C-alpha cells in the first residue's frame, strides 16, 4: 500500500503506524536495556555480598584470641607484698576502666605504704572485659599482658608499672598507648629493655583471659571490685583514705 511510506510533507492526516511501531520498538529496547542493567547491578551486588561474607569469616576466625590453658588460679593474679601480711587486699581491675584509674589515684599511695609496712598483701586481678572500648587495639588485654610479663620477670617493678599504666590511662573509646608506648612506660619505671621487648609476644594473654573468667565466676560484676580479706569493700573506692581506714580496721 502506498500509505506505507507517508511523506513527512503531509503530516496529521493519518495515524502513523510507522512511528507508533517505532515507539513500540524503542520502548522494547528500553525495557531490554533496563533489564540488562538490572542484571549487571544485581550480579555485582551479589558478588560483593559473597566477597564480604568470605572476608568477614577470615577476619573473625583469623583473630580469635588464644583460649586459656588450664593452670592454677595463682597464675592469673599479680601478688605484691609479704606472704605473712595481716590483710589481703584483692583488686579486680581493667586498665581501661576510668573508675579503676580514680581508685588508683585515691588509694595508690596508701596501698604502697601499707605494702611496704608489711600490713598488706595486694592481689591484683587484671581483667580485659573492656577490650571493646579500644576496638581492635585491645588495650585492656595488651596492658594486662604487659603487667604479667613485668611481674613474672621483675616482680619488684610490678606495682610501679601498675601505677604508671593508670597515670597514662587512655580515654574510653580510644586505642590507648601503642606497644612501643607501653614498653617506654615500663622502662621508665626501671623495667629492663629485654622484658619490655617481650610484651609483644603476648605470652600472658591466656593468664589475662583466665583472670577475667575467674573473676566472672567469682561473681565480680563491676570494676574496681575491692576485697579485704575476702570481704567486699563496701566503702567508696574513689574517696581517698576510705580504703586505708578499712584495712587498718581489719588489721587490728
Amino acid at each position, binding site marked *: 500500500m502506498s500509505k506505507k511510506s507517508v511523506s513527512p510533507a503531509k503530516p496529521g492526516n493519518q495515524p502513523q503506524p510507522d512511528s507508533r511501531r517505532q515507539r513500540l520498538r524503542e520502548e522494547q529496547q528500553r525495557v531490554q536495556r533496563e533489564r540488562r542493567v538490572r542484571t549487571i547491578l*544485581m550480579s555485582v*551486588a551479589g558478588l560483593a*555480598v559473597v566477597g564480604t561474607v568470605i572476608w568477614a569469616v577470615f577476619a573473625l576466625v583469623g583473630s580469635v584470641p588464644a583460649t586459656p590453658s588450664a593452670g592454677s588460679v595463682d597464675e592469673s593474679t599479680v601478688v605484691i607484698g609479704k606472704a605473712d601480711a595481716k590483710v589481703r587486699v584483692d583488686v579486680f581491675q581493667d586498665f581501661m576502666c576510668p573508675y579503676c584509674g580514680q581508685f588508683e589515684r585515691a588509694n595508690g599511695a596508701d596501698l604502697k605504704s601499707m605494702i611496704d609496712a608489711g600490713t598488706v598483701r595486694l592481689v591484683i586481678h587484671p581483667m580485659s572485659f573492656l577490650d*571493646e*572500648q579500644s576496638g581492635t587495639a585491645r588495650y585492656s588485654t595488651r596492658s594486662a599482658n604487659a603487667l604479667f610479663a613485668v611481674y613474672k620477670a621483675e616482680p619488684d617493678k610490678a606495682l610501679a608499672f601498675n601505677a604508671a599504666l593508670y597515670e597514662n590511662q587512655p580515654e*574510653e573509646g580510644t586505642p590507648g598507648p601503642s606497644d612501643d608506648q607501653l614498653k617506654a612506660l615500663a622502662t621508665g619505671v626501671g623495667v629492663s629493655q629485654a622484658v619490655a621487648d617481650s610484651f609483644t609476644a603476648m605470652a600472658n594473654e591466656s593468664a589475662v583471659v583466665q583472670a577475667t573468667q575467674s573473676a566472672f565466676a567469682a561473681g565480680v*560484676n563491676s570494676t574496681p571490685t575491692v576485697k579485704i580479706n575476702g570481704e567486699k569493700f563496701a566503702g567508696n573506692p574513689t574517696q581517698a583514705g576510705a580504703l586505708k581506714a578499712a584495712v587498718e580496721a581489719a588489721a587490728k
Partner: protein
Amino acid sequence: MSDVLERVHRFRQTNGWLFGTMIFSACLSLLASFVLSVDAIELARDPSANLACNINQVISCGTVGASWQASLLGFPNAFLGLIAEPVVITIAVASLAGVKFPRGFMLAAQVVYTIGFVFAYWLFFQAMYVIGALCPWCLLVTLSTTLVFVTLTHVNLRDGNLFLPPRAQQAALSALRLGVDAFVVVAWLLGLTVLIISHYGTALLG
C-alpha cells in the same frame, strides 16, 4: 538466573514488600529503643553504677552513660525512637490497607525521618569511634532505621510525594526501574558490615 532477578525486582516494587519491610523494621527499631530506654532509666536509678564499670551493662562504664552524646537533647536518645517509630508503623499499616496520604503529609514524614536517619548515623559513629561501646541494640537501631528510610524514600519517589522538579523526578523513577536503590542499599550495608567487623573484631563473638 536473570528471570529470578526480574521476579525479585518486581516483588521489590510491590506495596506488600515496601510497607511490610517498613512495618517490620520500624517494629525492630521500636523494640530496640524500648530496651535502650529501660537501660537508660536503670542506669539513672542506680547511683552505684556511676562509680564502676559494669561488666554486663550495655554501656559498660558510667562515664559513657553520662556522656553528652548519650542524651543529646537532655534526655536519653532512645526516647526519640519511642516517639517516632509508632508513627512510621501507623503510616505503613494504613498505606498497606489502601490509605492514600496527602503529598504534603508524606513529604513531612520524609523530612522528619531523614533527620532521624542522619541522627542515627551520627550516633553510630559516635558509639564506634568516640564512646567505644559495643551495643547490639544500637546496631539494630542503625540497621532498621536504614531500612525504614530506604523503603519510605522509595514509596515517596514512586508516588511523586517529594515535590521534585520534573526532570529530577524522571531521573529518580528511572533509577528505581534500574534497581539502583537496591544496589546502593546493598553496598551501604556491606560497607557498614566491614566497618563494624574491622573495628570490633572478635569482641563481636564474645
